[in-house]
């Protein structure tokens, strides 16, 4: 019985008919639906890279997706497309009142927004990247939990500037003041490099191969909000 389950999970045989019913979401492997979780598949199946993370904030849901999406039993990796409305409220901490902006910032923010060009120093996992709109950023790591084509809204920025004005955050700029969006355009890899380790007077050479993969983003929007709507 367990051997049959193992073989059907590995895809070597057609799935058993009673397990293929869609009413039993836990037994049907569905690695490509947006609601897939590694926990929903049999324990012997290796985890796939199709899990989407970054679901702390309520996401913009495209209405054109098919409604027959399997919800996983694991709440931590729920669907970014069809998130139940109660979940963002449970996941967020009790909302702190927004800190008021200083009068200098409030006075000069429309001037900054009116200037023709802007740059922003965004932070991804703490690492800074100085970008303008339309730039392509090849991160020095592979960003997990995203798929090609996803749109990320970056909220950590330490410097937001234009030709004559610069807004510095301590350590980050208030996220109500700007909007920065990036699209994941793909994952590229470096050429294979081989490190040869050898000691003197010993003939043995150890070859260590490396071929790292890196996520590539395209910054599609950098915008300074000239007026902040919800000010304290």
């Amino acid at each position: 019985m367990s051997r049959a389950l193992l073989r059907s999970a590995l895809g070597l045989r057609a799935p058993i008919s009673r397990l293929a019913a869609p009413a039993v979401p836990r037994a049907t492997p569905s690695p490509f639906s947006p609601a897939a979780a590694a926990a929903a598949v049999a324990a012997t199946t290796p985890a796939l890279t199709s899990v989407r993370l970054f679901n702390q904030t309520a996401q913009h849901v495209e209405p054109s997706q098919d409604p027959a999406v399997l919800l996983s039993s694991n709440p931590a990796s729920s669907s970014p497309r069809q998130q139940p409305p109660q979940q963002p409220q449970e996941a967020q901490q009790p909302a702190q009142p927004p800190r008021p902006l200083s009068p200098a910032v409030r006075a000069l923010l429309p001037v900054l927004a009116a200037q023709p060009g802007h740059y922003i120093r965004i932070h991804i996992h703490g690492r800074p990247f100085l970008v303008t709109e339309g730039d392509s950023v090849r991160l020095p790591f592979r960003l997990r939990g995203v798929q090609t084509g996803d749109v990320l809204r970056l909220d950590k920025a330490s410097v937001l500037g234009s030709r004559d004005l610069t807004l510095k955050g301590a350590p980050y700029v208030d996220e109500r003041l700007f909007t920065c969006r990036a699209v994941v355009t793909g994952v590229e890899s470096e050429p294979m490099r081989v490190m040869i380790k050898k000691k003197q007077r010993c003939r043995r050479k150890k070859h260590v191969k490396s071929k790292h993969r890196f996520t590539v983003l395209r910054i599609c929007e950098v915008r300074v909000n000239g007026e902040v709507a919800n000010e304290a």
Partner: protein
Amino acid sequence: MTVRALQKISVARNGVGAFVLQCKKMDLHYCDWAGSSKGMNGFIKSLLPKFAAAHPQIEFNVSPRPAKHPVIIAHYINGREKAVCVRNMEPFEILKKAELLRDASGEKLRRVTKPVSSINESVRGIWSPYHGEGMRV
């Protein structure tokens, strides 16, 4: 003096407006006799239908290639191809290779030192010794 427009060639920036997946076609070759194609046959039967349905922008072409190892050849918009031999792999390993090919652009692998590449002019302008605070002697 007439007002004339500056002539500029438009440069494609995939993602700024619409995002277009760079992989446009995948050829999958399998063999019914070779033992190295067992995983590929299982992949085509079990995992490929959903993978193909999830990517309607990629054209999938499945054809037998007798007495050869199984291979996936991905064609990209810039005209290049990437072939990955998937001999002796399990279906889920082949799925990972297919996802690798889907995420790649067709560019050759090259070592990149600087993370940000941009075609925009500098926002703050080029430094000049005559403007700003000047030099104190």
